């Protein structure tokens, strides 16, 4: 019985679960710090639109709520970059680069930019804050993007594209 459990764990989680869980808890704590101080549910993708307000005159980006939040969203993103940088520098693996093709990153990025803004959130806004709020809208959105992403990633693999 225990052997079966161990084999199953090894099969599902070949790299263990502790660093995943620890990372998740830290992401949650970061979100909680901002929430407790400011009452804001911080999501990562709104930054994309609010930052465009510095350079674009489109009224979509010049909405008062975007102007009001654009500065702290830049600081939030800078914090994310700095935290990840500090950790990787201390660990000594700063400078790791992905093998995923630039074209996939770029075209995937375009779809992410469109989809997260149209869909009112991303993995952090819907996935962490929304799911953490028990929001039906967020749970449906997350279930949908996860199922679609699994389908697409499986297709990419089936076509023999790696990684």
């Amino acid at each position, binding site marked *: 019985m225990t052997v079966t459990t161990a084999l199953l764990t090894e099969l599902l989680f070949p790299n263990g679960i502790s660093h995943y869980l620890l990372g998740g808890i830290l992401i949650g704590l970061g979100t909680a710090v901002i929430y407790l101080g400011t009452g804001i549910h911080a999501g990562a993708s709104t930054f994309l639109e609010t930052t465009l307000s510095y350079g674009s005159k489109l009224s979509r980006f010049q909405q008062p709520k975007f102007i009001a939040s654009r500065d702290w969203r830049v600081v939030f993103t800078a914090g994310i970059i700095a935290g990840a940088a500090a950790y990787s520098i201390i660990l000594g693996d700063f400078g790791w680069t992905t093998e995923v093709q630039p074209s996939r990153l770029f075209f995937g990025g375009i779809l992410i930019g469109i989809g997260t803004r149209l869909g009112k959130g991303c993995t952090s806004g819907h996935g962490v804050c929304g799911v953490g709020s028990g929001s039906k809208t967020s749970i449906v959105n997350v279930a949908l993007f996860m199922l679609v992403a699994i*389908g697409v990633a499986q297709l990419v693999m089936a076509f023999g594209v790696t990684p």
Partner: protein
Amino acid sequence: MSGATNGEASPARVPEDHEGSPWFLPLVFVGGFLFGIGLAVSQMARPEVVLSFLQFADFGLIFVMGGAAAVVSGIFFVASASGRSAPLSGRRYTRRLKSMDKDVMLGGGIFGVGWGLSGICPGAAYASLGIGNVVILYGVAGMFVGAYLQGYIREARADSTATQPAD
């Protein structure tokens, strides 16, 4: 920083969220810093790790979103039930509840295609830049292009149906 500003400056000036307290921006930075460490510790900053989850090679990512949502769920629940307001903004503590419409479905589907194709999402992409993965700039550039495109298209649509108030 003083809360009072000259009324004569610019009549259309929007008061910014962070003007309520000098501690607002430092606190947001600390929150972002923890968030970024979390993305680096969990390896979610590496597209390969996200793809290995989506391709069923390693299901560990469930614990990243699950762990984060569990922490947030507890804090949001207790704070919003308290009926109190946040010290740095005076905002009431609430849960994040967005309305459902067809854009939520369409947007989620489009985001899913992008996530499955590339293995990146916005927060993880910023963290990926932090771990020195400069190649991710292709992805971040794409995200800005996508965000601009949807804004441009929405504005064009809103202009053509000017009688309908926008959201």
